[in-house]
């Protein structure tokens, strides 16, 4: 693969509600900030990918609201509807395919719509939507399947919440930095067994942008580049009943693609920091299994063994993860941004010492049906 890198990043703080900001405002702010971060000007950006979702925004052609704010006037542009990791994937392909640079920008205002309606609409209108399924209840089914398959306890998931909300205290962008205990999680309000309130990510507002460039743009930008070493995405079956919800095989496939490109054969040894899409506490260990960082059924042991904590050999979600801020679509781009900051050594109090290879991960669809995996490196 040709050498391309992330040369500029920006994100808003994530909050429960940004009442005074429109999508347009949020996109404009991160676009300007990403340009500033990179030291590039708008003239250096020769195409734009916006990321938005018509259900979230309550608007058909939701991309119409933000093109101008993303500096896309008179530029080539397209729009990915899905997690920001997928939007950035397309942005990277456009650089590999001939453009010098792509600005990828995602926005999300979970505060404006009803997440029950929006996530109910992920399900099949004939067979599943009439049952009232939504992201919470379907994820609870997945958590239950995962526990049953490997004999995992709810407390094991609670530890993920404790770790990630604790990590969020070091992240000025995070929405929910919290000092909590396993007991707090276990005693929090029951939502859908086995999920309790503190197993679930919040509703969030925010935006994020990254600039992806070829070598010419890397030369021109002022930042230390985060080289794109490997990327891969993959989806599995749609109907929940067709899947083994405790076996994230699409993630395994996506990771294999990214690892093959990046020359990673032993992810646990070769990756220094990972930002994964933990929309619910159980997802972090399940995705670690899918990513091949541990064996199936061993994900929940990673905290106990001190591997994924900040002082471990592979800290996972130093930012606090999606559990600490969940702007849908933006969340995956935030994972890429966090990975980039780690590689630059600019992650502040959440910095993992000497991070040379970082992983970022995003999901689409019910229960992580579709995954996108990114491997970024500090060195070419």
């Amino acid at each position, binding site marked *: 693969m040709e050498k391309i890198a992330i040369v500029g990043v920006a994100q808003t703080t994530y909050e429960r509600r940004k009442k005074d900001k429109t999508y347009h405002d949020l996109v404009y702010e991160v676009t300007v900030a990403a340009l500033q971060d990179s030291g590039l000007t708008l003239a250096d950006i020769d195409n734009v990918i916006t990321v938005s979702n*018509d*259900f979230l925004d309550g608007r058909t052609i939701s991309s119409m609201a933000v093109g101008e704010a993303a500096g*896309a*006037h008179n*530029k*080539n542009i397209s729009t990915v*509807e899905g997690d920001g990791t997928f939007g950035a994937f397309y942005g990277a392909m456009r650089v590999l395919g001939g453009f010098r640079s792509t600005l990828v920008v995602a926005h999300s205002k979970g505060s404006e719509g009803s997440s029950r309606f929006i996530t109910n609409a992920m399900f099949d209108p004939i067979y599943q939507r009439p049952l009232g399924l939504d992201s919470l209840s379907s994820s609870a089914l997945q958590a239950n399947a995962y526990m049953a398959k490997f004999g995992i306890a709810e407390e094991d998931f609670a530890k993920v919440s404790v770790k990630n909300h604790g990590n969020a205290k070091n992240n000025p962008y995070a929405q929910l930095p919290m000092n909590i205990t396993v007991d707090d999680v276990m005693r929090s309000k029951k939502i859908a067994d086995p999920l309790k309130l503190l197993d679930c990510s919040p509703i969030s507002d925010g935006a994020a942008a990254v600039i992806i460039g070829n070598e010419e743009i890397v030369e021109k930008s002022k930042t230390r580049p985060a080289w794109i070493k490997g990327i891969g995405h993959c*989806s599995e079956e749609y109907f929940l009943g067709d899947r083994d919800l405790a076996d994230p095989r699409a993630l395994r496939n*996506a990771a294999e693609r990214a690892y093959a490109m990046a020359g990673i054969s032993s992810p646990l040894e070769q990756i220094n920091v990972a930002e994964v899409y933990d929309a619910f506490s159980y997802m972090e260990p399940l995705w670690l299994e899918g990513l091949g960082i541990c064996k199936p059924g061993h994900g929940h042991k990673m905290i106990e063994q001190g591997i994924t904590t900040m002082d471990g050999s592979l800290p996972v979600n130093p930012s606090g993860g999606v559990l600490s801020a969940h702007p849908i679509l933006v969340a995956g781009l935030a994972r890429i941004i966090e990975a980039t900051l780690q590689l630059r050594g600019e992650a502040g109090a959440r910095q993992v010492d000497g991070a040379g290879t970082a992983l970022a991960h995003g999901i689409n669809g019910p229960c992580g049906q579709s995954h996108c995996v990114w491997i970024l490196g500090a060195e070419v």
Partner: protein
Amino acid sequence: MARRVAIVGTGQTDHCSHRPDVDGREMIHEAVIRALDDCELTIRDIDAIVIGNMDHFESINYVDTWSVEGSGGVMKPIMKITTGGTTGTSVAIAAYYHVASGLFDRVLAIGWEKNSESDTTAAIITCSDPIWDRFSYSGAIPSLATEAVGYMNRSGATQEDAARVAVRDRTHALNNPHAHLRKPITVQDVMDSPMLAYPIKLLDVCPRTDGACAVVFAAEGTAEKIAPKPAWIKSCAVRHSITWFGDFDFNAGLMSLQRAAKEAFDRAGIKNPVEDLDVAELYLPYSYAGLKWIEDLGFCGPGEAPEFVGEGNTDMGGKIPINPSGGVISTNCIGATALIRVAEAAIQVMGKGGKRQVPDVVNALATGFGGCFWSDVVVMSTQRPY
């Protein structure tokens, strides 16, 4: 360095107003199977998929993941691209970059819509800004009518001139087994049809269609092995510049199309479009666009379109046949519509047009239109780019 990319196969449903016999996924599957059959591939040969439609038209969120059983996306990379009316060309261009990037060799692009599953006008109204426009907006027709009036005032074009475009497209549709409206009409029929918003009448505008389209893209080295005569992508360009409805200048040309076409033509080496292009599949959602926008494409000078079209230059057998497929006025399954333009242009390049084939096509043009007067342009050819 970007790889060269070609279209090697296309598939479409037999478009019609209602498809009660299939759900959305099953309809998509029909188009995908036809595209694979067209280039003698199986789903195992496909490395990645791009899909698009309009969320609120069927109320399906995450169409990429919902579709996999029909689209072939089980255990494959799939992503969703959505940009309104331009969705189909945006999907095609995304498939192009999937291959050009070097990451994937054979990529499937899918566009689809089941307009019969909701009220199309009501759904289109939700594309307007909820704060400013949605309470009064009544769909695309008033703004298109305004554009038409502006054009008529400048050019002296008549309603009959526009009707001629509708008659051309509907006549061409008779040759296309996939077209939705396959009944011939006359200029008088158009003139006699109910007035929707002056000067637009019912037969000046596109229908509402259920349908899907799938197109297979392949990399140089692979494409030639799959198709004897692949349709090489020479260039693509996109302008989605306007964000606010009130910024469109109804008294000027379609700026987005002028700019996208200039970029695409420059990169494809098209100097004189009428001479250099052999056929065009244009996203013309209403008849007046078939006058005004061909001027923006440089097919003729400002104000000359009525005569240019009237003399038959854009008919089958003319200098530059437009919409041998019957165009959008004959078939409009919105998320598929612009992809059908790409597919039909590729069909012409590949020489697979049957009764609608234009002889000896070398270069073909496809366009997309949508959003806030946005345009996408794709140029393809029997000849490799560069």
